[in-house]
């Protein structure tokens, strides 16, 4: 209570400054996780300092202080990012400059610089998150900045901030249609110059490499990787829900890597995909990954439909885009869950999948030789079955917390730790297979997923990321083997995901009502998905679709511009019409009088705008005598129409006066 009275009794300048500082804090707040620690602390200290100075009405620090702080910021940015350019360094600098600029609020120009930096800082939020909460926070911040800006242009007295907020809100509300129009019709284009490399750093997802045993504990990231809408809501059996990502076939003992696409011309072989059965048709909304690959359900023989990107298929059945996918994309695809692929005979390309680093994993190699020597394992399927049997019965367990593995990861898995997650298991399996002379490779991607009951979208999370194996079989081609399924049958094909212990908050909710949590989450994610589909995924193709619906046969970006131009012209015409209408709202009697005055002026009788009809009539009589008699009468009638006592004068009278005006002979000057 005391605080509020203190706040309301602040002088205007202090109040305005505190408000602006609050808005700046709101802009910076969502970024805290992405900014270096020193930056956040510096911003907090500067904002608090400035607030204190404002409340105590003390002078601002001199320029030496500001210069020193600026130097600190520059050095800090350089030390943190090793550059002053680029996205992350730029974000840090913008935020620090925004805070430092508040120490220099003197001229009107300084205030404007703060506003402009504020708008930039708001945009930088979107580098890291374009989610609904971020959007909401930034909408608030924008309204706050506009309020401060409006308030700065109310120079008189101490107008309440609510007044400025109302004006700002009104402007935003009226500006919203313009925003929607521009958003819908502004042609979406490819980046004007090369997408900055750092555009996507810090986003999790699949990667082109897999370093086995490097991660002690796998944190399950519940972030969403993709959403799939199956046509007619027909979801294939979970056992075949393998979404293919990068295929890793090169192994250096620690790290699996995917061969760069088409780098080895000799190894290029057609995918030789043979499909059967009925296709599954679906649309995927892929979260931005800054990777070139698309997620498709195994196996998609036809190029997915993704406008704006050039797509090509790899021999590993992957679909790649011509450039990294930096924004949310949506594409249609169709897949056949029954398929065979790869060469039927041992070719050079297949043989490459036998490579192992020399001398690594000696015990696994020995195990392979031992398995191979068993006549029961003569065929590849039998060998695979034997290994899977070993995984099932050999005391191997699935864990998300395997600890760090040393070198010879396959040996460590098969003989020492005997535990791990899909990476360890798939890697150890493929090493064993290769040692036994069976071409094998690792496929990464997503397995399973779950249905969001609110909007019917099938959701793939980062925690659904999976690694499995493919072994090559003479006469058949590549065959999928998921060794993780043998260790932890629950990992593949059921709803029971191995979840980490929930945090305190989620735990409490979960204990109360697990379904409530699930429902709330489903509703929230559906809302988010709507946001994604309608806002974040509004792309060039959707724009062109819109034009098609508007009746353009083969719409192009130029047509978008045309529509925008037409709307502009239409709006301008509407504005002009409105102005005319507004003018017509002036008193018709006064308008008639003004017309009469204008004609008298032409006739040589200059009269002030305040002259009443009677005075005009007298002037006419003085100037023209009897020649002006009809005009005099008309003017007196005009007077009577307005001022006569009896209310016989009506709008009809005015109309007749108007027509009479055209008939009477106007004297010429």
């Amino acid at each position, binding site marked *: 209570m005391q605080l509020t009275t203190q706040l309301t009794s602040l002088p205007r300048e202090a109040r305005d400054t505190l408000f602006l500082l609050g808005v700046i804090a709101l802009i910076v707040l969502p970024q805290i996780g992405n900014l270096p620690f020193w930056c956040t602390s510096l911003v907090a200290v500067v904002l608090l300092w400035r607030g204190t100075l404002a409340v105590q009405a003390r002078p601002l620090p001199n320029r030496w202080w500001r210069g020193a702080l600026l130097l600190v910021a520059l050095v800090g940015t350089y030390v943190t990012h090793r550059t002053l350019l680029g996205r992350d360094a730029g974000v840090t600098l913008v935020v620090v400059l925004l805070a430092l600029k508040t120490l220099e609020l003197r001229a009107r120009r300084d205030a404007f610089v703060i506003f402009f930096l504020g708008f930039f800082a708001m945009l930088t939020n979107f580098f890291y998150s374009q989610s609904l909460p971020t959007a909401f926070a930034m909408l608030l911040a924008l309204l706050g900045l506009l309020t401060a800006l409006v308030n700065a242009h109310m120079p008189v007295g101490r107008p309440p901030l609510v007044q400025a907020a109302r004006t700002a809100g009104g402007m*935003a509300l009226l*500006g919203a249609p313009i925003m929607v129009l521009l958003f819908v019709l502004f042609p979406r284009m490819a980046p004007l110059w090369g997408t900055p490399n750092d555009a996507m750093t810090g986003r999790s997802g699949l990667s082109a490499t897999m370093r086995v045993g490097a991660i002690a504990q796998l944190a399950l990231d519940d972030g969403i990787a993709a959403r799939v809408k199956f046509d007619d809501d027909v979801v294939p059996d979970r056992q075949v829900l393998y979404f293919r990502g990068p295929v890793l076939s090169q192994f250096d003992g620690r790290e699996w890597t995917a061969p760069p696409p088409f780098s080895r011309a000799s190894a290029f072989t057609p995918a030789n995909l043979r499909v059967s059965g009925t296709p599954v048709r679906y649309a995927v909304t892929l979260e931005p990954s800054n990777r070139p690959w698309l997620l498709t359900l195994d196996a998609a023989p036809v190029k997915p439909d993704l406008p704006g990107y050039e797509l090509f298929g790899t021999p590993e059945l992957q679909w790649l885009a011509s450039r990294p996918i930096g924004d949310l994309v949506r594409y249609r695809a169709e897949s056949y869950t029954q398929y065979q692929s790869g060469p039927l005979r041992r070719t050079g390309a297949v043989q490459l999948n036998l490579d192992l680093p020399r001398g690594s994993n000696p015990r696994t190699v020995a195990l392979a030789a031992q398995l191979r020597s068993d006549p029961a394992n003569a065929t590849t399927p039998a060998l695979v079955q034997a290994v899977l049997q070993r995984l099932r019965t050999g005391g191997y367990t699935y864990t998300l917390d395997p600890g760090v593995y040393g070198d010879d990861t396959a040996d460590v898995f098969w003989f020492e730790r005997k535990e791990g997650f899909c990476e360890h298991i798939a890697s150890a399996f493929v090493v064993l297979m290769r040692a036994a002379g069976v071409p094998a490779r690792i496929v990464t991607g997503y397995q399973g997923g779950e249905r969001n009951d609110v909007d019917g979208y099938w959701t793939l999370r980062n925690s659904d990321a999976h690694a499995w194996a493919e072994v090559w079989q003479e006469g058949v081609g590549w065959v999928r083997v998921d060794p993780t399924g043998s260790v932890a049958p629950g990992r593949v094909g059921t709803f029971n995901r191995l979840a980490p212990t929930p945090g305190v908050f989620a735990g409490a909710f979960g204990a109360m009502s697990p379904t409530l949590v699930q429902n709330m989450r489903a509703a929230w994610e559906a809302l988010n998905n709507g946001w994604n589909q309608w806002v974040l995924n509004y792309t060039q193709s959707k724009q062109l679709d819109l034009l098609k619906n508007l009746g353009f046969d083969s719409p192009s970006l130029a047509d978008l511009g045309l529509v925008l131009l037409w709307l502009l012209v239409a709006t301008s015409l509407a504005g002009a019409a409105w102005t005319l209408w507004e003018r017509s709202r002036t008193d018709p009697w006064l308008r008639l009088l003004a017309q009469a005055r204008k004609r008298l002026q032409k006739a040589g009788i200059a009269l002030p705008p305040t002259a009443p009809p009677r005075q005009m009539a007298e002037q006419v009589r003085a100037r023209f005598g009897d020649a002006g008699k009809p005009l005099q009468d008309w003017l007196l009638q005009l007077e009577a129409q307005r001022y006569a006592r009896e209310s016989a004068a009506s709008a009809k009278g005015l109309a007749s006066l108007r027509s009479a005006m055209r008939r009477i002979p106007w004297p010429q000057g």
Partner: protein
Amino acid sequence: MNPAAAVRARIDGWFLSRRAPSDQLELTQRNVYIVPTRAGWALGLTLAVLLVASINYQLNLGYLLTFLLAGCVAVGMHVCHGTLRGLALNLVSPGAHFAGAAAVFRVVLHNGRGSVRYGIGLAVRGSGQWSWSDVPAGGTATVEVAFKPPQRGLHAVPPLTAETRFPLGTFRVWCVWRPAAKMLVYPAPEQHPPPLPPGEPRGGAAAQASSAQSAGEYDGVRPYRRGDAMKLVVWKKAARAQAAGSDDLVSRDAAQAQRHELWLDDRSTGLADVEARLSRLCAWVLMADRLALDYGLRVGTRFLAPSQGEAHKRACLEALALC
């Protein structure tokens, strides 16, 4: 004056001459102008950079932010124009002022619409001395516009201008107003004028000789003034007055004193420059008025018979202003 400034002044003069002078001005679409301010251009640049960033990083939310901001600026332009459009300005006819002294015009702003108009500044065109005000919904506000009158004379009120940058400061909306009223500017009174000139005998130089002879003849009495000689006091009357309980003294009034009158003459100023003379005369008029003396004014060919009072003072000052 360089050629560019000359051309600009010509254009400015032409622009002003197109406006019919009037003491009231209704602001409409036709006489309210709008241009972006420097801050407006800077905001435009900001919008462009935001747009490029949105394109390059393919941020749909960035597009939304950019376009919402652009929408707000577009609406702000309309609001800014609307702040002046529909406003009616009325000049309260200005009084007379002394040249060079700070003075004000009063302008009454009428707001006919149902919402407040914020941040309207008024100034003499080109003076840069803005007085800001808000005009309440459906009400009026009186603004005092500071100005410094130029040289003496009867002048047209200088062109005024009203301006606003509300709400975003991105646009400057203004109008130019040529009021029809004239204002009278008196000469600037001299800062430290010499004392008033001595009185002149009534009737001019011809009476001078006789006045010397008639010294010592008393024509009547008048109330005592400080500095009257002791022998001029009518002691008989003083005794009578004191008996009646009054301290009033009465002096004999010499015909000589009555026949002298104060003439403020531009020739008696002893100055060569006309304006300096007028300044001194102006200061003398004010001084004589303050002393409640009868004074007459003789400037150039104009004569104002000795008298006193506010009307006389004004008449004198007006004569000084217009001669």
